[in-house]
Structure formats: C-alpha cells, structure tokens
C-alpha cells in the first residue's frame, strides 16, 4: 500500500480513493485513520511524508484536524505500530480517538514543508472555528497561500455563512486559484478581486501570472491590480518608516531621559548612565525570575511589577554613586567623567560576576508579543507600541516632578544658580542627591523598556551611552523638550536614511549630521536663555 501511495503524484481524488481502500483493506471503521498512514511521517522519505499529510487531510476522519495540529506542534507520536497524539497532557489513539497512555519517546518531527502543508489543510477546516480570531487567522493564511487543492473547500466556505472580513479574505484566496483558470474571463475577474489585497504574497502571484499571460484584457486587469497594490504598499511603507522612527525615537528618549536630568539639568557627566540602564534591565530579569518561582500564574505581568523594582534599584545605585563619588566632584567635569567612568566599569564587571558574561533571557509577556496588523505588509509589534506609550508616560511623569513638586522646584533652582539657591535655604546637598537618584531611577525605567527587545548583558550599557549623550547634546543641555524633539527627530531621520542607504551608512550619516550640527549650534536645538550661572 505504501509503495502505491508513494508512487502516485498528488491527484487528491485518487488519493482519497486510495486512502479509503487502505481503510477497507485493514478492516478499520469507515473514515478512521489507520496508524499505517502515520508511519511514513516518521520516516526519511520527504515525498512519502508529504503524501501522508495529504492522506490525513483527505481521509475525512473526524479527528483529522486534531492530528494535523498535533503534527504541527510536535505532539504526534509513533510507538511501534500504533500512533497517538497528545492534547493537554492526554494521549489519544489515532485509529479511533480512544485514550491511550501518554507516550514517552520523541514526537514525530515535522519540517517547514510538512508544517506548511498541514497548516494549509488546517486553515480550510478552521474557517468554521467557533473563535473569531482562529477563523480570521485561517482566512489570512488561505489568502496568502491557497492553491488548487483547496478550491472545493473554499467554494464550500463561501457558500456558507462567513463574517464579512473573513469572507473578503476567502474571496481573495479563491481568486488566487481562479487566476490560473483556463478561461480569460475568470482570470480578469480574479485580477479585479485581488486588487483589493495588500499582501505581498498576492502581489507575487499576480506578477508571476503577468509573465505568462497572453490575453490583452487579462494583462490590463492584472496591470491595474498590480498598480493598485503598489500604491498601497508605497503608502504603507512611508507610514511604516514614520512609525518605526517613532518607536526608535521613544527608545532613544527612554535611554536619554535619565541623562537629561543628571547631565542636562545637574551638569554631571555621568559615564555610568548606561550601567544604570543595565541595573534596571537586570532588576527586570530578577523580577521575572521571582515571578517564575513564586507566582507562575501571574508571569505575564512581571513587566508591570518590574517598573517600580527597577526604578528603586537604579535610584538606590544612583544615590550611592552620588553620595560616595559624585558629590565630591561637583563643578569638576573632567574628574566626574573619569570617576563615573570607573564606576561604570565596576558596575559592568559586578554584573558579569553576579550574572555571568552571557546575556540573560527575558521573555516578552504574551500581551507584548506578536503585533497589531495594520495591513499584510505592515505589522506593528506590541512591544514597540508599548514602548512608545511607556516613554510618553515616563516623560509626563518627569515633567510633572520637575514642574509641580518641591523637589522639582529645588532642582530647577539649584540648576540655575546653586549659591543663590543655597542662600535661599534650599538644601543643595540633598537636592543633588535626590535629583541624581531620580535621574538614575528613570534610567532604570529605560532599562525595563530596553529589556523587552534588546540584549540584557553586562555590556549593554556601553551600547546606549553614546546614543544617550547624542540625544541630550543635540536637544540642548538642560532642556527636556529638546531631549524629546532630538530623540524622535533622530529616530525618524535615522529610519528614513536606513531605508535609503542601509543601516551602516545611516549610522555614519546621523553621526556626521550631529557633528556638523553641534559645530553650527553648540548649544543644541533648544538653549536655556537668561542668566544661568555655571555651578
């Protein structure tokens, strides 16, 4: 039987016939899958494996979908002659769906080709899933991958009841198939249908058809569809550039905001700023570990819990640095630079000794994984959206503290004229300490954000110190608003440049631009006016 199965190419009807013949031969109940169908899946012959997937799909077995899903997720096992699949730690026999002992050995390993075929088969079955998201995902899958094998299933689906959004996608899927129809009229209609799509995969199907198309009417329809898709793709590309620029900008902003206070407002060149980001990121890691051990059910929320933890941890480290090192060096920028540089080495090596030289693993919680699909070509990852929102919130908080609190008032007073502020009874020493701790704490918050999409390791501080100084200097020392404009400006300009020149040249161009800009305007974008006295 197997040899026969393998020797056939894939006309589905024949296979279906064969599969049922196989069932008859083995004397199993109708529509059930014998384990023998699974056996080639565990073998080495790629074509036999692929045919086994077809055999499962076309068997009509009520469990076919569950078996395919199990194959995709590596939950399908073959033990000797009997095949079982596992769902939620319970095992079921493939032949009759009866429960079986949970298998011990290795699951059958699927590769991309099998997974693709199984997914395609599953998606036509899942069009009628009770959960809307599942239906939608299945329809999307079909729209970008449907082929001849699924024509019947799609036509059946369209005849039934479908949500409008799902229906639109299924129509696209069917049009993909119709595009290869021998009748020119049908191809023209299909091209019209496809012109509403913005999926790059659909575009590639159209372009391929265009190459072989002879009929002038169809050519025109395909040309129009391609042009429409191109217009949409070009538009969404500009939107994508701006949005990715904003998200890069908010990362820069979060990294630089703490520095905007310690350097911008207090005038301390804090070379350990990057390491304060690192402290925040490691605090996030420890919070995650704590949740894993003690609150495994709430693991998804560890990031929220990490926000105050990271703030306090980094603020505490900042406070210690200020009290032990920086406070003896106010007004001596070069010494501060060297001393904080030493501190940064101590902190980085400390992290290396405590956590090891390797990066630590931080998983994105499920609500920050995946993305929001604006169009098939443009997905906004949730973690990026989260960071934009978070950076705006932190910015608001900092502005609030600086403008509306006594600490903020003191900080601004000390910034403008330290001696005069001291004469007016401002405790400058404590103000310095608290302001430095605040800046450090905000760097810690930046660390939480960075931990969600970049590497957390002992060297991460180095990667961000340059960017942070760049933003603060460009924005104008002493200005939060300048910091914001500089961060988003650099982000968006950088992303547009990257689109044109590639990442390496873009980075160089941005640095060259900053050098030129600082030469022309050393005070940065926004300069403090008035009688500022250097401390």
């Amino acid at each position, binding site marked *: 039987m197997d040899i026969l199965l393998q020797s056939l190419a894939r006309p589905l009807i024949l296979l279906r016939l064969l599969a049922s013949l196989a069932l008859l031969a083995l004397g199993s109940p109708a529509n059930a899958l014998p384990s023998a169908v699974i056996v080639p899946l565990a073998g080495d012959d*790629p074509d036999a494996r692929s045919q086994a997937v077809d055999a499962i799909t076309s068997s009509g077995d009520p469990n076919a979908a569950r078996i395919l899903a199990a194959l995709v997720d*590596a939950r399908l096992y073959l033990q000797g002659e009997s095949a079982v699949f596992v769902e939620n730690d319970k095992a079921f026999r493939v032949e009759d769906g009866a429960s079986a002992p949970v298998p011990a050995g290795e699951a059958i*390993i699927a*590769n*991309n*080709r099998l*997974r*693709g075929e199984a*997914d395609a088969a599953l998606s036509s079955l899942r069009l009628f899933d009770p959960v809307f998201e599942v239906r939608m995902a299945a329809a999307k899958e079909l729209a970008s*991958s449907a082929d001849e094998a699924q024509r019947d299933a799609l036509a059946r689906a369209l005849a039934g009841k479908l949500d409008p959004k799902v229906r639109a996608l299924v129509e696209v899927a069917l049009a993909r198939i119709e595009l290869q129809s021998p009748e020119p009229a049908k191809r023209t209609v299909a091209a019209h249908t496809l012109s509403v799509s913005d999926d*790059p*995969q659909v575009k*590639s199907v159209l*372009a*391929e058809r265009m190459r072989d198309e002879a009929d002038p009417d169809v050519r025109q329809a395909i040309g129009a569809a391609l042009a429409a898709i191109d217009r949409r*793709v070009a538009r969404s590309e500009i939107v*994508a*550039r701006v949005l*990715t620029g904003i*998200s890069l900008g908010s*990362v820069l902003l979060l990294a630089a905001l703490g520095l905007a206070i310690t350097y911008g407002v207090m005038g301390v060149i804090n*070379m350990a700023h990057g390491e304060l980001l690192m402290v925040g990121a490691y605090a996030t890691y420890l919070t995650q570990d704590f949740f894993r051990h003690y609150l495994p059910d709430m693991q998804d929320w560890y990031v929220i819990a990490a926000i105050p933890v990271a703030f306090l941890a980094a603020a505490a480290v900042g406070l210690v640095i200020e009290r032990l090192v920086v406070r003896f060096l106010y007004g001596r920028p070069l010494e501060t630079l060297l001393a904080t540089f030493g501190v940064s*080495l101590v902190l980085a*090596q400390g992290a*290396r000794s405590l*956590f*090891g*030289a*390797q*990066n*630590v*693993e*931080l*998983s994105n919680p499920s609500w920050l*994984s*995946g*993305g929001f*699909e604006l169009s098939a*070509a*443009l*997905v906004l*990852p949730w*973690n*990026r959206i989260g960071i934009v929102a978070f950076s705006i919130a932190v910015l608001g908080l900092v502005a609030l503290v600086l403008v509306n609190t006594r600490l903020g008032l003191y900080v601004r007073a000390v910034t403008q004229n330290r001696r005069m502020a001291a004469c007016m009874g401002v405790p400058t020493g404590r103000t310095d300490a608290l302001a430095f701790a605040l800046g450090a704490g905000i760097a810690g918050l930046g660390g939480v954000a960075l931990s969600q*999409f*970049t*590497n*957390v*390791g*002992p*060297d991460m501080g*180095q*990667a961000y110190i*340059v960017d942070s100084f760049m933003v603060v200097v460009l924005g104008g020392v002493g200005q939060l608003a300048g910091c914001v404009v500089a961060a988003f400006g650099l982000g968006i300009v950088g*992303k547009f440049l990257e*689109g044109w020149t*590639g*990442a*390496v040249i873009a*980075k160089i161009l941005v640095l060259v631009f900053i050098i030129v800009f600082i030469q022309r305007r050393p005070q940065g974008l926004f300069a403090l006016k008035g009688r500022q006295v250097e401390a």
Partner: protein
Amino acid sequence: MTRRTFLKSAAATAALSATPLSSVFAQSSTIKVGILHSLSGTMAISETALKDTALMTIEEINASGGVLGKMLEPVVVDPASNWPLFAEKARQLISQDKVAAVFGCWTSVSRKSVLPVFKELNSLLFYPVQYEGEELEKNVFYTGAAPNQQAIPATEYLMSKDGGGAKRFFLLGTDYVYPRTTNKILRAFLKSKGVKEADIEEVYTPFGHSDYQTIVGNIKKFAAGGKTCVISTINGDSNVPFYKELGNQGLKAKDVPVVAFSVGEEELRGVDTKPLVGHLAAWNYFMSVKNPQNAAFIKKYQDYAKAKNLPNADKVVTNDPMEATYVGIHMWKQAVEMAKTTDVDKVIAAVAGQKFNAPCGFELMMDKTNHHLHKPVMIGEIRPDGQFNVVWKTKGPVRAQPWSPYIPGNEGKQKI
C-alpha cells in the same frame, strides 16, 4: 569609546596578570597550553563557553593520566574582544609562558590578528569556529567548518523542495570580513545555479545593531517577488533583537525561512523561541543529536558547570564550536602522544590524519594535508525549547575546501 575600551582592557590585563605569575612557580613536570578567548567585551557572550569547554577537556585529560605522563596546565588569558590585544596575548602565551599549543579565537578578525605571531614564533593554534575559508596556515588547525561544510549545503537545502524551493535570497550579515566573504562565495554559487542578480539582496548591519524593524520590513517587501529565504551571517548578540523582531512581525518560517550560520543553542538562550519554530541553522553538531558520545559530552559539561558553579549552571547548553574545541584538544593530545614530544613541527606532522570519535556521532578525521577536519553537515530547525531538530544531514563527514571553488583564482587550489 576607544578610551573606554582601552581602560577596560587595561583593567582586565591587570586582573589577569596574576595567572601567568603563578605558573612561574609551577613544576616543570606539566605541559602548559594556552586558552585565548575573550572573557569580557562583546564576544564574551560566545567565547566564555569555549574557555569553559577547554578547561573541562583539560581536566578530563588530566583525570585520565595527562599527556606523556605529564599533567596539562591551562594558562587562561583574556584578550577582551580587542583584536590587537589578541596578538599581544598570543605572544605572551608563546614566549613568556612557553605553552605547547594555544586553543582560541572566535571572530575571523581575531584569528587574522594572531596569525603573524604564530608564524613568527612557530607555534600551534587550534581554531574552533566555522569561518569563511580562503586561508591555510601551517601553524593553524581549523576544527570548525569551511564554507563547503556549512554555507553551501545549507543554501542547496533551501533551494530543494523540502527546504521550500527558494528562488530569491536575502543575504543579511554583520559588517565584517566573515559575512562579506561568505556572501561573496554564496553569490557566486547562486549565480552558478542560474539565480539572477535581481533575486539576490545583500544587506549589512554594524556590530551590536539592535533595531531590525526596517530590515524585517524590507525582507517582507523583497519576499513579494517570489519564494524567498534569508541567509543570516549576523554575529554576536545582534541576533537576539533580530529574532525577536522576526517573531513579533509574524514572519513565519514556512513563508520566509531564515537560515543562520552563527546562531546556535547558546545564542538562543536569550530568546523566546516559540515564534521562531522552523527557522534554521546549519552546523556540524547540534546538542539534540542522539548518540552515546554526545550524551556523555553533554553530561560532562553539565556536571562541570555544576561543579565549577558557572552562572546559570542548571541551564547550560552545548553547541558546535564547543564540540570543535573538545575535538581539537583531544586531537592535539593524540598527536603529542604519537609524536612523543610537544615539539611544534613534529606535532603538526602528527595531527594530520588523527581520528576522534566526536559528539556529533561520527569519527572525525583531520585531513592529511589541508589542516581542516572532515565534518558532517547538519541542518536544524529551531524547536520551541530553543534546541534544534536535525531535518537534513550528510551521510558522513565531508572534506573541507578551504579555498572555495566559487571564488575566481582558486581553481588550482582544489587538491589542497
């Protein structure tokens, strides 16, 4: 930044200068071997594990009686991911510590930096990482893969029906010598297979790049032109943000598979691999390979990690360069025993043709002439747990072609 790096390395030098001092007082009944891997700086992520593997292997050899009746004494130095410092440290190992052989280097640029030292002082280097080829030095043994043992078979697999039948190729790498040379070879290879210039895109990012939004977007756009695969030669920790972005933007392996040449179990430790299932890596060894040698190798390393209390000791993994380090040290030991001396020229002659039962499940042989190992090629798909399923492998070890036939001017060098 340079000052920063300089100060860091200076600090590291100061911290480590204690190590060679202690060896002055050691008995002469030991044989010293050097371990030259970055323990700080950007490459520490990958190279620290190789240092640990080397120390473990030396401990293992000592436990079984040492070499020529003498114990091995490791001399560990830290070149701190600083390429010129690699040369200095190599010189120190050879002329001050008088080591019999050196095991080390990861990046091609560090290897190029130490080469003149090894040639001048006629010493011996075992290099354990896959690389771009185009090199063959008398003083170096390459236990990692040459391009024909990794890059070329992986690309062939992607073009096959099972690999997805790729027609378009997005070559993405970090901007330095290894990715550029590898992509040059791949471009020539693809052209020889009839792939058009317009169907190949080459993109580079700087070391430590962490924002891959635009690039993943561009991959999607490129994929609109037909069945596409991505061949990634991104090195170091940039891989983590790259793979996170892939997962978040929903680029699935069955639509656009990404095959990586420098991503292994160790690099994936920092990534949530669930959205990455099905993306590929090509190596000559995977931790998931089932055979008695590998089981023993993994257990040995895990026990070693626990005994030495390495960070995250309960979660350590093994990978291809670690296996290559292990094989390299054992082959050196066998060669010394065969030559009955640690004299460099005699050992070099003896290493050729050495055989070792490696954790990859094959008896590996050092080629008699070209200083490269015969290695099996394996292609693995990422599993949800961060390990790899081998989906394709060669029947047996393949001989290395250090001089790629796809680079013009190498035609006469194929016999080497």
